[in-house]
């Protein structure tokens, strides 16, 4: 998402922000260490004792990444209405997740997303493919987070980007290793507060400076938006900003939103969160809380974008400023440096919480799904936790190395993680949970097809420059094309193969609470 820092923001050590961020980092580590766990249930699923409100907060902080915190406002600032596809894409998927999967995952009551599809299809091949997909999703998603964390630490401490990335990566990896999921969730509750307060509070002052209903800036910016659309007497007049398809076609809008929504149903770090609650009711209600907490930020992000445009007057919006527009808006509103530093601390919290969730799910895929379930089922619990900690460290290191030389188009890489989840885990999970006829052969064919289509569309968009791929199925928004293909393949293979037996039907009745 962030490829460079605006020159005026990039240099020098900033004492106020440094103290705030330093305290935040210490707090994360302390919470992680005090929540240290020794049991497998504690490490992976927080002893299944998390209530709906804290789990909703954990869901939200898990979800709100550096890209959401900084990049969302930046995209809207640059592309206007068309970027609202990200706002609805990153929220609407939860409504679908709730009705199709939330309670069923909780009732299944194991550890990972792959556990569910592995047991449902009773197949080692499905298990291995599911674990590989999980690792790829966690990896590509985390690279962008590490990069964002590195850039913010570099901005605040005036350090070299590589050193900043090393410091940030070491801390986040360290506390996941030390604490496991219990520490991650407790941290994510703290992190939600540490990210939402620095995001919302400065907005009141920025709206006050701009003169638009500071008490409720999420509504107040509407007046500025109307002026931008209709009032040619204003320096910030720009009718292209609100024109529905000036920044991208209607098809692109729908493809982006659909991919992000369907990707939500297949993201392992989201799915894992539903094993941590006490019962299926808490699982369902934690989605409501999570959606509310997420929306609190997404309602405010467009306000940052619009108010930044107002405050900069007639200056042309540039991609360079878009990357850090929430911080730029604070500068433009002449807020004190330490106050602007709060926003930076919030961005760090956002990056840490998402990365921790991704690291946990990626490490679980390697150590739990591949090592224990497939390679060494006889491993003892203590041995499993040691392996989990080791794999977390190795994965964190590998992600850090990639983040030091990040791909050129980070936003597209993040989007492609959603495309992959939407074309693989999403259909295999949803069809598997709602149709007892789907066979292991169909799941295997679905995962292979989804993976192949994802590789092809990513290659066609980024390297092969295949025109129809770039238009109809770009890497970051391909699910509108790939998901129907995968579903069709799964249905055809299912109808050509023998139906699963009573064991699978009994599992599905349990997942739907029928035999409970």
């Amino acid at each position, binding site marked *: 998402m962030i490829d460079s820092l605006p020159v005026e923001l990039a240099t020098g050590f900033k004492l106020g922000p440094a103290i705030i961020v330093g305290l935040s980092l210490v707090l994360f580590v302390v919470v992680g260490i005090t929540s240290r766990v020794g049991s497998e249930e504690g490490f992976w699923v927080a002893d299944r004792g998390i209530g709906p409100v804290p789990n909703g907060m954990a869901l939200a902080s898990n979800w709100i990444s550096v890209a959401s915190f900084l990049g969302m406002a930046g995209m809207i600032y640059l*592309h*206007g*209405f*068309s970027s*609202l596809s990200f706002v*609805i894409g990153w*929220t*609407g998927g*939860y*409504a*679908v997740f*709730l*009705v*199709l999967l939330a*309670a069923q995952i909780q009732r299944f009551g194991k550890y990972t997303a792959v556990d569910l599809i592995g047991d449902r299809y009773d197949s080692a091949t499905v298990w291995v493919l599911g674990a590989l997909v999980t690792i790829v999703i966690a990896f590509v998603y985390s690279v962008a987070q590490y990069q964002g964390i590195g850039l913010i630490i570099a901005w605040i401490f005036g350090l070299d980007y590589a050193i900043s990335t090393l410091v940030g990566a070491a801390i986040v990896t360290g506390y996941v290793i030390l604490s496991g999921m219990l520490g991650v969730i407790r941290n994510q509750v703290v992190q939600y507060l540490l990210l939402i307060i620095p995001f919302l509070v400065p907005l009141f002052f920025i709206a006050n400076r701009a003169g638009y209903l500071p008490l409720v800036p*999420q509504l107040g910016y*509407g*007046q*500025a*938006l*109307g002026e931008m*659309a*209709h009032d*040619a007497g204003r320096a910030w*007049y*720009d*009718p*292209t900003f*609100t*024109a*529905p*398809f*000036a*920044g*991208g076609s*209607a098809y692109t809008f*729908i493809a982006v*939103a659909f991919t992000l929504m369907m990707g939500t149903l297949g993201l392992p770090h989201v799915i894992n969160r539903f094993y941590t609650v006490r019962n299926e*009711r808490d699982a*369902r209600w934690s989605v*409501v809380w999570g*959606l509310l907490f997420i*929306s609190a930020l997404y*309602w405010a992000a*467009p306000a940052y974008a619009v108010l930044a445009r107002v405050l900069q007057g007639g200056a*042309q*919006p540039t991609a360079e400023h878009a990357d850090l527009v929430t911080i730029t808006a604070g500068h433009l509103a002449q807020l004190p440096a330490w106050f602007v530093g709060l926003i930076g601390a919030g961005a760090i919290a956002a990056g840490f919480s998402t990365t921790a969730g991704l690291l946990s799910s990626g490490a679980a895929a390697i150590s739990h799904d591949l090592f224990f379930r497939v390679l060494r089922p006889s491993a003892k619990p203590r041995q499993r936790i040691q392996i989990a900690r080791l794999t977390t460290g190795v994965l964190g290191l590998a992600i850090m190395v990639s983040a030091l030389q990040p791909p050129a188009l980070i936003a597209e890489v993040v989007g492609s993680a959603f495309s992959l989840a939407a074309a693989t885990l999403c259909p295999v999970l949803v069809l598997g949970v*709602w*149709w*007892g006829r789907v066979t292991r052969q169909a799941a295997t064919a679905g995962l292979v097809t989804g993976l192949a289509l994802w590789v092809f569309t990513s290659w066609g968009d980024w390297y092969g420059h295949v025109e129809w791929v770039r238009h109809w199925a770009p890497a970051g928004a391909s699910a509108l094309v790939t998901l129907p293909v995968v579903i069709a393949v799964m249905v055809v293979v299912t109808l050509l193969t*023998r*139906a*699963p037996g*009573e064991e699978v*039907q009994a599992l*599905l*009745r349990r997942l*739907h*609470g*029928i035999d409970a």
Partner: protein
Amino acid sequence: MRDASPVFSVRHPGSDMVRREIRFIALILLVWALGSFGFIIVLWAIGTKGPPVLPLDAHGWENRFNIDPAALPGESWLTRIDIIGFPLHWLWTGMVLLALFIGLAVYFNVRVDALRRDASSGATDAGPAREIGRL
């Protein structure tokens, strides 16, 4: 070829309670799809057709005061309606739709909670045996 045991599916869920839950789900997915994509399709259908123009280059930015807003892609009578300052399509997409998603989630949970309460008191659900017997 088919196994003798009843196969779980949306059409034959094996429980009245789950059957009713599936009706709520269908309703919610319909509202979700119409709200998320139906509105955009309407905007496209009635709006001005044309290729995207953003991001503007320096020349385009300087000349933005000379652009005819009605000629921009997607513009229509609908996008010229303002509510509390917001163009209607922005208000719907950036504000109302998020509230709609939350509302749908609350509605679903309240209805399912009621279903579960009824089921646990034996008021509505005769259990899986009756449903499986029909298959």
